[in-house]
C-alpha cells in the first residue's frame, strides 16, 4: 500500500500532521462537558476514606468469553482494603443491574451504593450478605463506614 506513496520530505510530513491537527480541532474537539465533568471529579475525593481496590474481575479473566457471550451475563467483582473484602455479583436486567454481594470485615457498618444518579441504601444481613435491585447501569461504588472507619470500593462501570 505504501509502494506508490510519494517520497515526501520530513518538513512536508510534519506540516501535514499540523494541518490534520487543525482539522481535528474543528471536526472532533473535546466536548466542553467532558472538561467540566473532569474538573468536578476532584470533589468526589474523600480524604479520610480508604480505598478498596478491584483485585478480581471476571470480565478481565474471561475476555475472549465476554466477547462471545456479550454483556448479558453475570460478572463477579472482588475488592480488597486492608481489613475489608467485598464481593459483588452483577446481573444485567435490561438497562439496570441487580447486585448481590458480601462484605467481610465491616460488621455493623453502614453501607450505601453510590451511582451516577444518586445513592441507594444497602442493608446486609447478619452474615454480611446483601442484595440491591435496579441499580442504573453505569459507574458505581460501594461506600462503607462506621464511627471510626470509612472505606469505599474503587469506581467500576457495570
Amino acid at each position: 500500500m505504501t509502494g506508490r506513496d510519494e517520497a515526501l520530505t520530513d518538513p512536508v510530513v510534519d506540516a501535514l500532521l499540523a494541518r490534520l491537527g487543525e482539522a481535528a480541532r474543528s471536526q472532533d474537539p473535546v466536548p466542553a462537558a467532558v472538561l467540566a465533568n473532569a474538573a468536578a471529579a476532584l470533589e468526589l475525593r474523600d480524604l479520610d476514606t480508604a480505598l478498596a481496590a478491584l483485585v478480581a474481575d471476571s470480565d478481565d479473566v474471561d475476555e475472549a468469553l465476554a466477547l462471545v457471550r456479550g454483556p448479558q451475563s453475570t460478572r463477579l467483582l472482588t475488592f480488597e482494603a486492608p481489613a475489608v473484602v467485598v464481593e459483588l455479583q452483577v446481573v444485567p436486567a435490561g438497562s439496570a443491574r441487580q447486585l448481590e454481594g458480601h462484605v467481610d470485615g465491616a460488621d455493623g457498618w453502614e453501607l450505601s451504593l453510590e451511582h451516577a444518579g444518586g445513592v441507594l441504601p444497602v442493608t446486609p444481613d447478619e452474615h454480611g450478605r446483601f442484595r440491591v435491585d435496579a441499580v442504573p447501569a453505569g459507574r458505581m461504588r460501594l461506600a462503607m463506614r462506621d464511627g471510626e472507619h470509612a472505606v469505599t470500593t474503587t469506581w467500576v462501570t457495570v
Partner: protein
Amino acid sequence: MDDLDLEWCLVRSAEGDQLAWGRLITRFTPLLWAVARAHRLSDADASDAVQGTWLRLVENLGRIREPDRVGAWLATTCRRECLAALRRGSREQPVEQDRVVDLTGADHRSVDADLLRRERDARLWAVFEGLSDPCRRLLRALLADPAPSYEEVSAGLGMPIGSIGPTRGRCLRHLHTLAVEAGISRDDLTSVSPTELRSSPAAGSTRGRTS
C-alpha cells in the same frame, strides 16, 4: 514538552486545590480524548472513558510514584477504560458518531471564511477516517493538542515506542497520497491557516507547545 510542574499539580490537587487540578485537566484531557477516539469509541463511551480515567486519578492522588510520567499513567488508565468499554459493548442503542459542529459558536465577523475552513477540514477529515485502522489509530492519538510524548502515545495505544516514528511517517505519506487522489490540493495539505491559529480556542491560551 511544557513547563507545567506536574509534581506541584499533583500535590496541590491532593490537597483539594481546584486550580492545580484544572491545570492537569487542561493539559491531559485532549490526550485522553484522543486515546478514546483512537479506540473508535462513540461520544458517550469516549466521554465515559475519559471521566473514568480522571476518577481513577482522584482515587490515586498521593500514590503516583513518578509525577513526571503522570501523562503516561493517565494514558494507560484510559486505554484500560476504553478496552473495558469495548468489551461491554454499547450499553444502549448504538450511538451514532454525531460530531458536534457548533456553528452557533462561530461569531458573525467572518461566517463565510469559517464555513470554508470547516469544509476544508471536513474534506481532509473524511480522507483521514478512511485510513487503515492502524494508521487512523496512531495518527488520532498523535493529534492531541498539546502534542503528546511518544511515551504517552505508546501507553495509550499499547504500542511499542520504537514503532511510533516509522509508522507515523508511513501513515502520513499514505494520507497525503489518498488526499491528493481525493482532489485536495498539495498546498491545502501543508498550509495551516493563520487565522485558524488565532481564532481557535484550542490553539491559543496557556497550553502552547513550548518545546
